[in-house]
């Protein structure tokens, strides 16, 4: 795999929308061929804008990008032939049948005659839509419609498939089914998948490499394990019986062997520990001596949420809420470094 040229390369993409909304602020991205790459970030972080530029829909104010070896600005037509796009909005024609949608899509890529018919049937089978294929799309469930969207993106056997928020709006069952589907796609020979999501779990589960996007640029990139591995040890979260003095709690825990990154807030105390299980009795003892009684303690392996907190300087859920209101979040990076 490493001998192949990158499937996607973007350098210093900048995109501003009217009203001085900076969507991309120096986006750099490299996606290896044949991999599943996840762009993870809250709504409004710039994921969709990145996808729009890479799929030739939008033009950046500055910067350069290539997909499947073709420059998106100078040879958009070559890029379009090489990519499949599953956008956030379905885009399937509701009054046409699933099969008709697939046939038209294939024809737009120049597929003709029996070949396009065969391909449509093959995809309907593969995505469990063989019966539904004869019915109008407006009667489809959310999950069926999403599967059809993915099938539409695959008609012409693209080299690179873009999946923009593929499971947003799906119920949990349909989401799990879609995850299985994407995991199977990843096994397809040579297919590169660029996935955007604001679900941590989704990125963790599907992507081989993840880039965390925040405010129009990438803050950190790596495999899920690498990212989580950089947060040494486990997270230990403790709930105190009463509000405690922040300084006293911090002082009591800081410097304990194998314990670092102490974060106390109200009744919540979080630390990182080399070995979470072994640290719990030590932590409880120290808090007890400091006069803070503990109601509950949990040990957790680091999650992508922790990674996000560390690199974006805010919790994922806070970022979602803040960006949804278009308020620049200024949440302090409370002791994560």
């Amino acid at each position, binding site marked *: 795999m490493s001998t192949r040229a990158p499937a996607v390369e973007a350098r210093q993409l900048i995109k501003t929308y009217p009203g001085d909304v900076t969507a991309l602020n120096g986006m750099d991205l490299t996606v290896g061929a044949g991999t599943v790459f996840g762009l993870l970030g809250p709504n409004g972080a710039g994921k969709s804008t990145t996808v729009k530029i890479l799929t030739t*829909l939008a033009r950046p104010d500055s910067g350069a990008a290539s997909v499947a070896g073709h420059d998106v600005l100078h040879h958009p037509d070559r890029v379009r032939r090489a*990519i499949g796009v599953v956008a956030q909005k379905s*885009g399937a024609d509701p009054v046409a049948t699933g099969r008709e949608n697939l046939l038209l899509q294939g024809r737009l890529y120049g597929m003709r005659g029996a070949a396009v018919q065969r391909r449509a049937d093959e995809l309907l089978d593969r995505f469990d839509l063989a019966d539904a294929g004869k019915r109008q799309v407006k009667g489809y469930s959310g999950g069926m419609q999403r599967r059809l969207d993915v099938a539409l993106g695959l008609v012409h056997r693209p080299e690179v498939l873009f999946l923009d928020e593929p499971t947003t709006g799906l119920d949990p069952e349909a989401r799990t089914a879609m995850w299985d589907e994407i995991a199977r796609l990843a096994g397809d020979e040579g297919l590169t998948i660029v996935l955007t999501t604001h679900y941590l779990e989704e990125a963790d589960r599907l992507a081989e490499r993840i880039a965390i996007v925040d405010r129009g640029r990438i803050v950190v990139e790596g495999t899920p394990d690498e990212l989580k591995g950089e947060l040494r040890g486990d997270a230990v979260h403790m709930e105190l019986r009463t509000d405690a003095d922040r300084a006293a709690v911090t002082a009591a825990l800081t410097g304990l062997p194998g314990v670092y990154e102490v974060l106390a807030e109200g009744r919540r105390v979080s630390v990182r520990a080399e070995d979470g299980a072994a640290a719990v009795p030590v932590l409880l003892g120290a808090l007890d001596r400091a006069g803070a009684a503990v109601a509950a303690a949990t040990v957790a392996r680091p999650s992508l949420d922790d990674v996000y907190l560390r690199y974006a300087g805010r919790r994922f859920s806070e970022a979602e809420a803040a960006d949804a209101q278009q308020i620049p979040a200024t949440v302090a990076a409370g002791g994560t470094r």
Partner: protein
Amino acid sequence: MSSHVIAQTWYMTQRQLMAIIRQPVFLAISLVQPVIWLFLFGNLFKKVVELGGFGTTSYLDYLIPGIVVMSALGSSMWAGMGTLEEIERGTLNRFLTTPVSRNALMNANVVQNGISTAVQSVIIVLLGWAAGATYPGGAGGLLILLVASILLGTVFGALSNALGMLVRRRESIIGINTFLLLPLTFLSSSFMAPSQMPSWMRQIAEFNPVNWAMVAGRSALTAQPDWGLVLSRGGALLALAVVAVWLSTRTFRSYQKSV
């Protein structure tokens, strides 16, 4: 135009026609409406031919070209709603990420609108014939009426599409259409012979493209068509249609930039 643009134009046209056929309510309304107009206005104004200047003694003969053109206007001016829906649903963006020719996307709107207008016009002409209307101009005259109504439909279809892409609000299209429909219709010779109209109205009607289509079609349908009138009004319609399509293509480009 290369062969693949023509093929793609046809695929996209087919898709749009299919969508119309599969929405029976929409289809029914666009066919029942001209029938109601024919019936209502045919009866309401039956006696006005006695005033003279209509070039015929049967008001129905006079009315048919008017209804054909009115219906072309009435159905084409909503084209922007469909375009707006395609934008909102993400369908247009889906097509834009494929190698489909951008021209084919725009052409399909024009071709589909032309076919729909033609079918609607033919149905009205046949209904009129069944109700006893005569067409002294014969097949040639009917063809010219058909072309005039298609050109008018192209003008308003293209403008409506441009509006849809530009304002992206249903309310704006509805507002502008309801504002325009009646003045465009009544400031024309649809129901009343020009010689019976107040002179200021007649003057305004001279600049109304809806009237151009009616004048050209109506003249072509008489036993002795005034070819000068047919060609000048038809030519003006053609020129306007070219401008409207050019404008909607420009708007389409600006839409692509705004994505």
